[in-house]
């Protein structure tokens, strides 16, 4: 009978720091830490020496000084006497505006192109493949410039809409497409318009409630309630009723060709830079989303479709109930990272003169105040916040849809 004893403990030797896997990782991390501290220290000392040589001091006081430049496209009040900080906020809102608009439209383009590319129609699928390849392989910067050029060089000036007998007429009497942007009607909120809006919101909630109820009935009794026309009716009827019962409180302020001799007055205006950026980002990213959608639909195995038809589901029901829920799990993560790309690519606004955060804080403010380090740091911080929050949302979603495996 032999007994096992532990091998005699080796005393620690210095060479074990490199040769023994138990200690080696500590050695490497210590070296990395020293190198990191050294690098940061070196860069900081360079920075301080350079700042001293140029007589500069870091600080964010410049943000409260008046900006002194105008911004055409803005969502909140702003004058050239407002502070740099307010200009930056205008820029932030503009970035978010164009990103949100472009995300919506890119999704529409992308889903349409992705689904149509799988169409049995030869011409349509080839056309969509053409669209995807053309737009994916040419830089977005070139697309932004091309669409901006279309906006500014091809569209007529606002003057052609003016006067008693204009060269161009308003589309439907509502919209004017000019090289300065699109002029359209603006709503005028009268007394009682709050009720109309409340009814509209309530009817949307009602639609969701009804659909939930229909689903409940379907799952519990197998009886299928119609959802198409009740949704439409719920959406339109109550709001229209409320609109007329309150005495038509919401009016339209139309662009007026006669009010002014040089420009269209009245209504709202969406500037050409915003439209160019919006459209270019949407159509460019749409091509990428189309590929994601196609990959997602193709990832659902054909057996699923066949099983659904074997159960007697009709094609569009197969799509809605069987293929799409499974495809969405594949589509949504890359879709969200495309949204992130849109937000980051919206920084190209500076090329067409749209006042987003890069153009205000990183452009004019930086050039006027010379505060390069502060401005660029703030700019990065903003984009980093957006990216990290979108990634956080994506992680939550991924965890919620991940296949629950046994």
């Amino acid at each position, binding site marked *: 009978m032999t007994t096992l004893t532990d091998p005699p403990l080796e005393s620690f030797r210095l060479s074990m720091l*490199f040769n023994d896997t138990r200690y080696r*990782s500590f050695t*490497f*991390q210590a070296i*990395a*830490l020293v190198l*990191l501290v050294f690098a940061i220290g070196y*860069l900081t000392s*360079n*920075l301080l*020496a*350079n*700042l001293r*040589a140029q007589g500069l001091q870091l600080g964010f006081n410049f943000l409260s000084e008046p900006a002194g430049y105008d911004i055409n496209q803005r969502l909140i009040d702003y004058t050239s006497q407002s502070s740099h900080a307010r200009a930056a906020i205008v820029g932030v809102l503009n970035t978010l505006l164009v990103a949100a608009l472009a995300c919506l439209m890119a999704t529409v383009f992308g889903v349409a192109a992705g689904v*149509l590319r799988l*169409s*049995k*129609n*030869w*011409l*349509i699928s080839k*056309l969509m493949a053409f669209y995807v*390849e*053309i737009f*994916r*392989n*040419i*830089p*977005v*910067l*070139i697309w932004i*410039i*091309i669409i901006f*050029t279309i906006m500014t*060089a091809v569209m007529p000036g606002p003057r052609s809409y003016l006067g008693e007998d204009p060269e161009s007429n308003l589309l439907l009497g509502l919209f004017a497409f000019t090289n300065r942007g699109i002029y359209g009607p603006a709503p005028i909120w009268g007394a009682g318009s709050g009720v109309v809006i409340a009814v509209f919101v309530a009817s949307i909630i009602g639609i969701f409630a009804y659909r939930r109820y229909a689903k409940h009935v379907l799952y519990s009794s197998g009886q299928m309630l119609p959802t198409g026309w009740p949704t439409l009716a719920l959406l339109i009827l109550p709001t229209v009723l409320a609109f007329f019962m309150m005495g038509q409180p919401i009016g339209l302020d139309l662009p007026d060709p006669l009010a002014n001799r040089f420009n269209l007055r009245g209504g709202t205006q969406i500037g050409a830079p915003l439209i160019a950026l919006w459209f270019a980002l949407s159509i460019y990213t749409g091509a990428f989303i189309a590929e994601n959608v196609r990959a997602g639909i193709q990832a659902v195995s054909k057996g699923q479709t066949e099983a659904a038809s074997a159960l007697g589901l009709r094609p569009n029901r197969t799509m809605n109930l069987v293929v799409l829920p499974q495809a969405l799990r594949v589509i949504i993560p890359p879709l969200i990272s495309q949204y992130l790309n849109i937000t*980051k*690519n919206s*920084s*190209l606004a*500076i*090329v067409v003169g749209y006042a987003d955060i*890069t153009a205000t804080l*990183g452009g004019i403010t*930086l050039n006027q105040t010379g505060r*390069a*380090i502060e401005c*660029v740091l703030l*700019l*990065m911080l903003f*984009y*980093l916040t957006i*990216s*990290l929050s979108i990634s956080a949302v994506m992680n939550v979603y991924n965890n919620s849809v991940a296949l629950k495996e046994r």
Partner: protein
Amino acid sequence: MSDTQQHSVAFVRTEAIPEREPPYTASGPLKWMKDNLFATPFNGILTIVAVYLIYMILSSALPWMLNGIWTTSSLAECRTVLDGAVGACFSVLTERWNQLLFGFKYPSELYWRPGLAFMLLFVAIAPVLFFDLPRKLLIFTGLYPFIAYYLVWGGAIGVPLVALAGCVAGAVFYQSFVARNFALGFLGGVIAAFVTWYIGGLFIPDGANNTAWMRAVPSRDLGGFMLNMMLGVTCVSLSLPLGIALALGRQSSMPLIKVICVVFIEFIRGVPLITLLFVASVMLAYFFPPDSTVDLFLRVVIMITVFSAAYIAEVIRGGLAALPKGQYEGADSLGLDYAQATRLIILPQALKISIPGIVNVAVGLFKDTTLVSVISMFDLVGMIRGPILASTAWNGVYWELLGFAAVLFFVVCYGISQYSQWLERRLATDHR
């Protein structure tokens, strides 16, 4: 049997009827159209709309292109020749061809140098792209960066020679010690390279550039499509090793290394390239020693390399994660240490999985090199938007120029993505 039939059935045909042609709606182009274009009424409507759209685009674009003028010297002259007819003015491309390709400052008598470097690029990357070519060609690939540097920038031949000597010294040291210990070979190789560069630098006299046989061209004179190509090729090749290192670091079991890599990657991926280019143009100079001058081209190369390295790291991390766990365990059970297992077992397979992703990053990066026009470098887009459209002769020739830029980028990017698909099929070793 046949007897009963003869009596009970009035007539039985005894030979087959000759086959008839199928009806014309069930074969040939008509059937194809019915199946593929007009299968359902909705499909038919889609087809008609698509045909109308294509007709609209072609009917306006084709006459414009076919009627193009190639030989005038200004837009006004072009309009006189066209005399009111629809037509493109492609003469801006022929007249400004050199500017579009090389920028407006590169000395015109030296155009052959970047041209030759561009031709040699194909020789250099051919053995990397196609495995059937003789492996000896890889020697030229290794020499190419130094040749290309010398051709494009010119100046003292000592600079690329010393750089090459350093790399050779490092490689020789690495080769002779890596079998014993990877860390020793790697670190020793790096140190050997630096020592060689330092000693070699002492031999290059200060004013060597002015007396050089090949005239020196400063980086700020580079421009045009050449700048896009140079940024794209340099940054992709530099960011590959950096990306691999970052990906391995992110997978590491050492918490400090892992944290450093994660923070770095997420930070870079979280900000747009434009802000990094702002860093290169206005901020990076503050972090260099006070009396040093690092030119804008180098600063931009640093920032774009860092940018694409973060993206490549994520792609390679995907490849590392996709590798079956058995590969890691198999390497361990053979007694390989971390460096050996990574070098011989893990990376070759992980990189193979990541090739499509890496190519995607490379294509995206090449497209993104156009952003340098925002920080007033005159690349292809910068040339078009700046000197050419602003000149009195060509003010207003948008479509020809932008279309040219678009076609150039399309050809390169589409070519790369087709190559990547070919490579994927080629490398597919699993049985499908």
